[in-house]
């Protein structure tokens, strides 16, 4: 059904910390590895070893430079995958009902058996979250690892999306945004988690934590007293040293 649920019991999604992502692409490949093997059709690569290689990935890491008013340019590594929007345009445009948003947890999924590969949902998504697999001819997207998060064949600590489990820097967090005390809700509140392209009206569930202010140290001012000289040359230093050592008790700390 491509009608959006009025509300969902839970709002599962991800928090992506742009202040901690080091751009290693671990999430990209672990997602590829998990999903080519599990939910739905394999994630193919065409001309895999040739000049025109192109493959289906559900999560990709961009990078952007930001030139602030003052200070040096910054570089931000930027992972992007389906944001499991509350007002998902990709769901309503689908003609077959293959694209749907689950009432239980808000995850947006593709029922690959019903997908005719028209591509309209990918056109409707501002974020490029959907890629049509060239070999399978169906639309692929982040499943929020629906085949992991409830999977009783996995130890409880592993019932999280593959990308979250693998992120070495801990820049990805998974949880329930409908619960104000969840990890993702708290992080969003503490760090000012933001929506991507909010003017598109999609009401994304995934939130991005903005980079913390950088290069604030600037030139020395408040810490200047710490570097007050005790001497200006070797001789003076030795004199200071004598004073310091004679002030010490007979044993060191």
């Amino acid at each position, binding site marked *: 059904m491509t009608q959006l649920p009025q509300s969902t019991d839970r709002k599962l999604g991800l928090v992506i910390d742009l202040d901690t992502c*080091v751009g290693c692409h671990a999430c990209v490949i672990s997602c590829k590895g998990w999903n080519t093997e599990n939910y739905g059709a394999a994630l193919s690569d065409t001309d895999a070893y040739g000049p025109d290689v192109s493959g289906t990935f559900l999560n990709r890491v961009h990078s952007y430079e930001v030139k602030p008013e003052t200070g040096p340019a910054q570089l931000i590594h930027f992972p992007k995958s389906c944001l499991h929007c509350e007002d998902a345009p990709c769901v309503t445009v689908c003609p077959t009902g293959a694209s749907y948003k689950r009432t239980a947890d808000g995850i947006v999924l593709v029922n690959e058996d019903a997908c005719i590969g028209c591509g309209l949902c990918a056109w409707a998504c501002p974020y490029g979250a959907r890629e049509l697999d060239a070999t399978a001819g169906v639309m692929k997207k982040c499943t929020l690892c629906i085949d992991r998060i409830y999977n009783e064949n996995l130890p409880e600590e592993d019932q999280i999306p593959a990308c979250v*489990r693998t992120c070495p820097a801990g820049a990805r967090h998974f949880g329930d945004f409908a619960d104000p005390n969840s990890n993702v809700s708290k992080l969003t509140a503490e760090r000012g988690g933001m929506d991507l392209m909010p003017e598109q009206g999609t009401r994304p569930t995934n939130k991005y934590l903005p980079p913390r202010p950088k290069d604030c140290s600037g030139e020395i001012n408040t810490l200047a007293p710490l570097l007050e000289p005790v001497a200006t040359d070797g001789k003076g230093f030795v004199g200071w040293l004598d004073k310091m050592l004679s002030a010490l008790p007979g044993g060191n700390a």
Partner: protein
Amino acid sequence: MSLDEPKIDLSPKVSDEIRKTTCYMCACRCGINVHMKDGKVAYIEGNRDHPVNRGVLCAKGSAGIMQVNAPSRLRAPMKRVGPRGSGEFEEISWDEALQIATDWLAPLRETAPEKLAFFTGRDQSQSFTSLWAQSYGTPNYAAHGGFCSVNMAAGGIYTMGGAFWEFGQPDWDHTKMFVLFGVAEDHDSNPIKIGIGQIKARGAKVVGVNPIRTGYNAVADDWYGITPGTDGLLILSLIHCLMKAGKVDLDYLAQFTNAACLVNEDPDSPENGLLLKDKDGKPQVIDRRTGKRAPWDGAGVEPDLSASYRYKGVTYRPVFHLMADKYLDEAYAPEAVAERTGISAGRIRQLAAEIAKVAFEEPVVLDREWTDFRGKTHKTMVGRPVSFHAMRGISAHSNGFQTARALHTLQILIGAVETPGGMRFKPPYPKPATAHPKPHCKVTPGKPLDGPHLGYPHGPADLCLTADGAPARIDKAFSWENPLSAHGLMHMVIANAHAGDPYKIDTLFLYMANMAWNSSMNTTGTMNMLTDKDESGEYVIPRIIYSDAYSSEMVAYADLILPDTTYLERHDCISLLDRPICEADAAADAIRWPVIEPDRDVRGFQSVLCELGAKLGLPAFINDDGSQKYADYADYITNHIRRPGIGPLSGWRMGDNGLQDGRGAPNEAQLDTYIKNGGFWLAHVPEEAAYYKPFNTAYQDWAVKLGFYDAPQPYIFQLYSEPMRRFQLAAMGHGDRQPPEHLRERILKAMEPLPIWYAPFEEGLVDTEAYPFHALTQRPMAMYHSWGSQNAWLRQLHGMNPLYIPTEIWKKRGFKPGDWAKVTSAHGEITVPAMEMQALNSKTAWTWNAIGKRQGAWALEGETSESSKGFLLNHLISELLPPRGDGMRWANSDPVTGQAAWFDLRVDINRADAPKASQPHHPPIKSPVPQAPKNLAWKTKS
């Protein structure tokens, strides 16, 4: 209305079983869970129990599936049938391959074993391959450290018995400020990512010093876009500021370093600049309790940082006084170094002030008692929680050794080594340079070498020279050109062998080293050297044996190919004898084991060496009756005894009363036990031994128990380096062994016993107006040197590499998006795709290393982006610096260690129209493996 949703199986089967082993997509050695379905590898993720990665896994590790099924995998031993470089081979049997190798190597061993040059590249089995080479009797063996990061390793070990990477780590739990110098995706990969994430989450500060602001430097709170090659100057300026302000840990310096040792100040003495020692050779200090001389490690001695001493007409001053004289000089003031480093004086002071604040106003004090080697009991452990990490960015310069020493000096001055929040060594380190072997090079035909190849010289007497003072090794390691070359100089082997300087060789035997491509400087030149023939029409380097798992560019240049397995198809030991996976809080080692069996006629290289070693009758590889000692590598791992009770793996060894750790007899079931335990073994460092490891009796005793050494080896940090001074003295004309004339001045200048900075050599030898810019490479996080392009997933991330040009140059030289760049150096010229970058030092361009590939290699089809747009910066770099006034050409290396000075490169950059392909472009090589499939839709059927 109810929305009908399809029913999904929420608990699908994940795998039939999980096999735990160690990753080998890079040298980080993370533990991995390999999920199997129907006997095939279905999915790879991190092992949560593993001490290195604790469940996380980077892009490379997760892409392991595409590595073990890469079409570029070699399939059988091969014999060259076309000319070298053509890629024309015929597949042969192992019997034939081993026979050929034996026929080449056996007679050579009897006559001139030094003519076998055996060098290993990206492997980690040095304690095994060195044994083989030693048993063969050639002095010409090393691994790749000489072109990797020997400056970092040697700088650390000579100074404090440990360094960064696998020797040490930040105290992630307690550090409050973490400063990275010259770090890209350099080891220690995942642990650094984990650490950075953790400390940022708890509010610690991360500072990145690197001309390029990617990766760890992108998430740094402060970024210092330093001019390449000037990190040492920045560090010495920080030292200047801190010493000048008295912000140094005097207690720590007095007790745990040689700052209180006494330096001979008599200019006429042959011991000038060496430390005062007693008749037992022990360096002396003045004891504050008595005011008299005492050995540095005397019971209860309290070394006096301030006392001078006069003895037999010679004045001795403490090292610390010399340091004060040196570093308080205004030449190291921030104003004096700002322009060179590209960091303003204000920011340098700010950094120094922040270090001082965290170190001295926010110490971490642990309520733990410990006893030092002088018998003194300390009530608490006082930590100065500023930690550091540095890698190739400071190492790959001709001033890298001194820079590394400078950084360690900074750490030690503020008391941040082996204290809470600072740097911690990983067992079996710390081990001072004096506890390491010295290098050996004595050749006896038909017999083993007289000891291990690589080591740590302490003076001219330890150099590897022939009777007439010439270098004994083909790479000239441990010679006057680079005395402390602890890891050898692999990057000079081919050039020296080609030139016959110091001599010609017969057989070049390489393992996992892409010397005919990205691992060499002067790539085209190197390829020519490998194919050059002499007047008689024979190849200048007569025979080349190469072992690799994949169809790399080097394969085409070998005469005999011994195909290796992939990492899921083999045994390996990540051993305490070698390069283990220890953490600061635990000794650990690990294995790899065949999770799948090879589906082609390949064998693990080490197993091949076991067989070849037996065929050649190498003593370490045969039993007393001459039969083959080790059936394969697994047999060696289990049964080899290096020293009494010490084998490659420390876990679950056989004791008198059952299994024990560290020392013990071989245990047949050892490998199985490792497999059951997730592929690794751990022994926790007792809490009271966790810090002050070099001085802490609890740690020293534990280290002996585990077999790292046979008796406690406490020592103090060597701020002042006597080995360096001894070489200076020889250059000045003292002693029996003295350097050749043309090297005296250089040794005098470069081997200062206290850290200094000098400009990178290239700067003094090229016209810096003609080549005003710097050019660097970084290793990307999703590729590991030349591995990665044969991987269908990873190559989509980095299928080509542009030259990133800073905005200032981009605008000045009129670049537009889509333009290419012509980059010239004193050595060569390249034309490559270009891209603008803002977050970059304004005089530095850079690219990702090793992405460019040669057409025909790695089973890639046709003119891929790797071969038509990708490129190597290597073409601009020569292994020899431009000629000096006297016509001599020095190696493009650090004069102390011989480390390849990749990042000294100076270039000019101009706009160019796009050629058909990046230049220089090399003709395709014939692929020795069959064509790759066109499309992939990877899913194991189940």
